[in-house]
């Protein structure tokens, strides 16, 4: 690992709480290792702020392995920053130049209100999930044997790919309409592709879309920005699949 350090300028959104008006503030940070992750850079900045007895910047994060979906950040005009197929925690400072000015903002969407600084409230995603993102099977341990229903590898793989969504919200953040279609369709697709999910497929898609609409997300106009910025490379095929599923359900619904 070729270790190098850079000096950067940061313009970061600061907002005391949900009700206050925020603004972009400027910071300067020196000696950032290019091997650092973006969040490690923010740690370093926060350490500097604490040492200056200023309030550090609040941002969401947990696993720092690109899997929990907790980290967010709109960096230099893109969700999860300029690199592709990574979350902010996996974005590394080697993607930035010495002397560069980096803009850091929270996800912006009516359905994702800012809580503080860079932290937003994504509970809308949970509520969509609660509306139907499951197979209604109780835990008994007496379900049929796991190998009772063979599932073609191709279908299983597709279901898996859809299921890798981490619920980070980058799709919403990068969509000009703040639409949640990629997220919702990933879950709908995963379950629609598996025989276990098919029993409730119609009701599921109707309920999840209804909840999605109620949360105040925008409408999909197929710009495709979501799939480009999605750290898990969830495919637009899933949106099409959800459109099909919904159409089917709409026609057949009683």
């Amino acid at each position: 690992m070729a270790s190098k350090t850079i000096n950067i300028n940061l313009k970061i959104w600061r907002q005391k709480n949900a009700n206050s008006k925020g603004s972009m503030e400027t910071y300067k940070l020196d000696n950032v290792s290019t091997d650092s992750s973006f969040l490690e850079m923010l740690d370093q900045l926060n350490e500097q702020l604490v040492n200056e007895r200023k309030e550090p910047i609040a941002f969401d994060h947990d696993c720092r392995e690109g899997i929990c979906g907790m980290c967010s950040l709109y960096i230099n005009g893109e969700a999860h920053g300029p690199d592709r197929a990574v979350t902010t925690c996996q974005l590394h400072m080697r993607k930035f130049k010495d002397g560069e000015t980096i803009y850091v903002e929270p996800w912006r969407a009516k359905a994702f209100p800012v809580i503080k600084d860079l932290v937003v409230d994504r509970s809308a995603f949970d509520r969509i999930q609660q509306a139907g993102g499951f197979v209604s099977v109780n835990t008994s341990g007496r379900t049929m044997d796991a190998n009772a229903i063979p599932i073609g590898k191709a279908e299983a793989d597709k279901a898996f790919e859809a299921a890798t969504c981490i619920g980070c919200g980058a799709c919403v953040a990068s969509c000009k309409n703040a639409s949640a279609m990629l997220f919702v369709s990933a879950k709908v697709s995963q379950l629609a592709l598996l025989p276990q999910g098919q029993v409730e497929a119609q009701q599921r898609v109707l309920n999840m879309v209804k909840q999605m609409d109620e949360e105040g997300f925008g409408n999909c106009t197929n710009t495709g920005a979501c799939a480009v910025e999605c750290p898990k490379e969830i495919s637009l095929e899933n949106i099409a699949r959800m459109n099909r599923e919904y159409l089917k359900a709409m026609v057949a619904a009683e």
Partner: protein
Amino acid sequence: MSILDSKIPEGHISKKWTDYKDHLRLVAPNNRPKIDIIVVGTGLAGASAAASLGEMGYNVKAFCFQDSPRRAHSIAAQGGINAAKNYQNDGDSIYRLFYDTIKGGDYRAREANVHRLAEVSGNIIDQCVAQGVPFAREYGGLLDNRSFGGTQVQRTFYAAGQTGQQLLLGAYSAISRQIGLGNVQMYNRHEMLDLVKVDGKARGIIARNLITGEIERHSAHAVILCTGGYGNVYFLSTNAMGSNVTAAWKAHKRGAYFANPCYVQIHPTCIPVHGTNQSKLTLMSESLRNSGRIWVPKKKEDAEAIRAGKLKPTQIAEEDRDYYLERRYPAFGNLVPRDVASRAAKERCDAGFGIEANDTMEGVYLDFSSEIQAKGKQTAYASGNHNPSEEEIIQLGKKWVEEKYGNLFQMYEKITDENPYETPMKIYPAVHYTMGGVWVDYNLQSTIPGCFVAGEANFSDHGANRLGASALMQGLADGYFVLPYTVSDYLAGDIRTGKISTDSPEFEEAENNVRDMISKFLNNNGSKSVDHFHKRLGHIMWNKVGMGRNAQGLTEAISEIAALREEFYKEVYVPGDANELNPELEKALRVADFMELGQLMARDALQRNESCGGHFREEYQDAEGETLRDDENFNFVGAWEYKGMDINQSELHKEVLNYEYIKIAARNYK
């Protein structure tokens, strides 16, 4: 010293659980809505427990500090989950899984618990598939398996390198359904800061709403802690940044014994440390050891040249490579258990063969070129090409590897900027999992009645070393298949209790405690950040309570941490207010508990004058550097009772382990 009652039921090991279950008390469906249960944590253990209890009709309140239950640290598990399904017909069975787990744990786990775990393992897979968890499949449509360390069968179910994610999302979907139905009330971004005991029983918690800072009282008839492991006491670990010991530690302080704190798993395959600002370490799944071969140069000068950047690993000839695991452990080769693999890496690096050019020169290679060759050839043959060119082989081989481990390879490349398809991965051991935890009996109940502990937070199933792919199994077994029975049995006595009031003096006292602690931190006029202290704590822990321990180092660690703790309370600066989102405050509260835990870990390690599993005392090793267990004197679970701020006052209780069904033997992977 008292004898702990583990409440292991009578009978033959294979019948214990079934018979016991049949005789547990039940709560009738109409009574369940009158009973409140608090579940802290929504990882595999917590989400599955909350969902199952919610399905049964109890009134469940679930808590997690993340913004959604789906983000619990279980999400990060990569490699897989074990189950004795014997789908591969390679001789697997419940007994063999039971045996492997006991042996893997270096004969320091409780037989009855482990057998139960092996018994329900198959049900877990059935349950998850029914929920729509997309496990990897073979072309015929049936479930695929891989091997993990410490076993000679293929019993690990997986979903690429994201098994934990898929399992957790399954459990999350189950809990989401119950939230939608109103059976589970979810409290996201809430952190439990104390356990409340009323009349000796766990009756609630004090939690801080992390957004508003509000201190809330929540009461229940039982409290279940599923709050994960405490690896972050080392600062650098593969755990998520928020993983902490606070919930478990608060229970400990309220009377729950803490068992085997010194048993820490150091995982052999993690990406080496890159610099001082590093915030965490990244695991490269154990499953990679199915396909990768671990080596360092045979010659020291080659290692030096590599560190100096003068040689590339691909330039080292085959005969100049030391595949030290294959050399030392021919039977298991690269698939020896984690503790063994980690120590072997440390041994090579200590001897000067490390290849990483960082401050510590620690690092070994995990090389996929042999596998790429082998699988490339296989794939070519399978597709009817019996005369593939070298290029075709390599291309097909890489494709095969990508299919199996694509996300891990990508993650490695993003972090290190090196392409692991072309050059071997650099890896080094890192803190990963904690076998120790809150002591629980067979019912998963701690020494506080009504306080149950499940998942990584308890100590129960893995002895001194956990085998890969067994934590996920344990979390789901506890939550789906054990707690619903044992908690019901406990609650059967509570159907007439009625709602627990939160106005009692006990709640008052606990809340005031929390408030005091918070205001103490916020009003402290220190100058150093929380991380500053956490890093220093981690340093002491890694150097003296890490992969190799000795009496002197441990004694030093105890007093060094004591001093650090004092300095921490004096010098720490926590900015911000109590009544707002305040990550620094959250960290301070957690680090305070880590300090105490760190000391206890050192004490426990000092007490255990033997080497076993993840606990390696340098004084106790054989001529070849293998662990020397002392079954005569240390065949027990060390459960600590809290006796106040001075950890030296904590009292050790022993639960002696009886091996009735497995002959205790030296662990041999040669």
